[in-house]
């Protein structure tokens, strides 16, 4: 394992300090926690948005703190959900009196820790609601009750719920629009090579020289199939088919696209993938209203990419295109 770091035990600490050092006007730490929050808190009267999860997905989640997206992000150890006491600190930092929405990715650990935190916050008199993102269509099994994982689609939930909150919506409304996104957002990824959790020192799985895996999760959870390496075109159509099995898009439908690199895949390849994907959508007369491309929900240095499609209506499109000014994601500023 070769990584640029100092002390493996201080990894998250060092990262958070490095973030604040890089963005001193945008971010601040809540002392003695792993919570980052806005440097200047939003005016009271705005619903607070809190997200978070294990570290190793940067810029998720703290990179999305700022106008039009999140108010606080809680970082766990690498690929490990943060604990309830930390999430509680995040909730407190984001609350301006109008309540807080927790955006949780659907992993057992995240759900339990965030829900325990919500219980603690309620006990302190803060109005907390939560939504659980489960956009990864790789997982599908009726005998399977854990449900689908939350992956890159989470970024669009941040964006749209964040826009609604910025415009002054009430907690219940923000929650409803977040749930609307969650219903319409579907993702799936492929991995070409694994990543290594620093504390473990070994890659999470191995892939042959000519192998790739379809449907890998953002923590290296196994996907649905191993195949030999596919072309960009084949990847685009394989992922699209699986996503569209759920979305059932028809000619004339409008979608927003997120092409997400998992960490080590060059932007060049993401654009090539997008070229294949957008040709495919054009052929099916599906209208792409917006494309976000880059690294947004990574898995350390995993190589591979995921595709996210969100079927939009006027409300979602409008909120999606609303301006945002965060550390990692800026739009129309």
């Amino acid at each position, binding site marked *: 394992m070769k990584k640029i770091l100092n002390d493996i035990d201080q990894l998250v600490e060092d990262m958070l300090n490095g973030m604040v050092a890089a963005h001193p006007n945008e971010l601040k730490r809540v002392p003695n926690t792993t919570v980052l929050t806005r440097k200047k808190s939003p005016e009271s009267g705005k619903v607070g948005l809190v997200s978070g999860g294990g570290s190793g997905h940067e810029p998720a989640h703290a990179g999305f703190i700022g106008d039009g997206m999140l108010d606080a992000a809680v970082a766990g*150890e690498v690929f490990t*959900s*943060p604990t309830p006491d930390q999430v509680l600190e995040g909730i407190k930092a984001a609350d301006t009196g109008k309540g807080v929405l927790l955006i949780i990715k659907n992993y057992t*650990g995240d759900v339990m*820790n965030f829900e325990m935190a919500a219980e603690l916050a309620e006990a302190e008199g803060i109005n907390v609601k939560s939504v659980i993102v489960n956009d990864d269509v790789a997982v599908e099994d009726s005998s399977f009750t854990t449900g689908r994982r939350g992956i890159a689609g989470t970024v669009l939930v941040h964006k749209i719920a964040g826009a609604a909150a910025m415009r002054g919506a009430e907690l219940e409304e923000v929650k409803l629009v977040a749930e609307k996104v969650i219903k319409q957002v579907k993702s799936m990824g492929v991995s070409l090579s694994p990543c290594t959790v620093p*504390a473990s020192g*070994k890659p999470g799985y191995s892939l042959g020289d000519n192998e790739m895996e379809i449907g890998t999760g953002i923590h*290296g*959870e196994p996907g649905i199939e191993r195949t030999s390496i596919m072309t960009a075109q084949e990847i685009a159509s394989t992922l699209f088919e699986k996503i569209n099995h759920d979305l059932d898009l028809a000619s004339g439908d409008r979608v927003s696209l997120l092409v997400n690199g998992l960490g080590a895949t060059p932007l060049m390849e993401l654009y090539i993938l997008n070229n294949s994907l957008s040709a495919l959508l054009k052929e099916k007369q599906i209208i792409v209203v917006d494309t976000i491309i880059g690294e947004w929900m990574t898995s350390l240095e995993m190589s591979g990419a995921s595709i996210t499609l969100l079927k939009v209506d006027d409300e979602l499109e409008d909120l999606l295109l609303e301006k945002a000014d965060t550390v990692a994601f800026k739009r129309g500023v």
Partner: protein
Amino acid sequence: MKFGADEAVAWLIAFQGKVSENKTYLTELDQAIGDGDHGINLARGVKELANVFEASSFESASDVLKAASMTFISKVGGASGPLYGSAFLKMSMKWKEVDKDITMSELASILQEGEESIKARGKADVGEKTMLDVWHPVVQACSESDDADHFLQVAKEAMEGTKEIRATKGRAAYLGDRSIGHIDAGAMSSYYLFEALNETIKEKVV
């Protein structure tokens, strides 16, 4: 049997030893069918627990378990943190009802509180290839026999038995059939917990 603060600390220190020693193994188990952090998560928790034990003294086993609960909840993270945390919180509360001197069947009822709270927190049941598949038979075994080796034997078989189960909870569930053939990491760490309990009872408890 006498099971007060000292014995409870001894139990958890023994647990700490096993987890630290087998940190890599636990992580490997989790790597095979999960995300490879169970050993790391739990080792961080029990290390902190040892610090807590060093720094404070306790009146009762209940107090010890309460401190353990807080440490698990705030230091472990992931799925196992809240699960062990909830289990120890509920066990701590139940222990208050009994004396320093407890019977094996009282111990069973304490452990059952733990099992129930894992079930509730994890929305899981027996047979889903989780730590519950060790907790449940152990609770049974404790209520059946006063011999501490009995529940250990049961725990061992149950832990090994998770190999055959197809996961439907936790990260391993994403693997479907491919989860078969691997021991569940949380089942393994729970086995260490009960192994530590067995040793404590046999060595310390009079």
